[in-house]
């Protein structure tokens, strides 16, 4: 079963009340599946958007991307750099 580290940043870290969460997910789980697990594990994460911007191993991905063992999934609030 793949181990995935979920990271929260900026406003999402404040809303979730934490900066990271370690999860064990089913084989062939997608980013969307991991997000569903996050909502189960962290009640405060229920207020996060349904389709947040996500990055897998430092690259933006869509919700149907597959996660693998050791992956880092980041939930990114709307970007406002520059």
């Amino acid at each position, binding site marked *: 079963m793949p181990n995935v580290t979920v*990271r929260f*940043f*900026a*406003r999402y870290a404040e*809303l979730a009340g934490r900066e990271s969460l370690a999860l064990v997910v089913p084989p062939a789980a997608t980013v969307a599946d991991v997000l569903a697990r996050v909502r189960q594990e962290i009640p405060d994460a229920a*207020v*996060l*958007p349904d389709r947040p911007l996500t*990055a897998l191993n*430092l*690259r*933006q991905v869509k919700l149907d991307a597959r996660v693998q063992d050791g992956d880092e999934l*980041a939930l*990114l*609030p*709307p*970007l*406002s*750099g*520059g």
Partner: protein
Amino acid sequence: MMDYLTRNPISVESLLREVQSPERGGTCIFLGTVRGNDDVTGIDYSAYDAMALAEITRILDEAHQRWTGARVMLQHRLGLVSLGEASIGIAAAAPHRDEAFAACRYVIEEVKTRLPVWKKELHADGTTTWVDPTGKQVAGGLRDR
């Protein structure tokens, strides 16, 4: 080579030193500075550092592949940046001005859509607001701007 992310003021001279050379006859500098809207006294910048560094590397590589004679460098501030100070500096030098302008423009536009960096506005009354360029209503009854 200089750091892409810094907690110190951005030095235009340092950026220029990274890109200028005798064969590059056109140089552009872009600075993004903290605007004095409403009662904002400064902006606190935070980042997903590892991804920001990876994205900057990718964006600069893309610019160098697209404008092969150009050399582009950028620095983004993190932490508290006061009104009027630069939060980002980009220098682009190329043999001719067209490539310098184009490469500089490319890099700032890609930064805006790809760099995992967030702004928290600090207000005169001590409150703070996360900036949301999408302007959408967010959870918890709070509204980002």
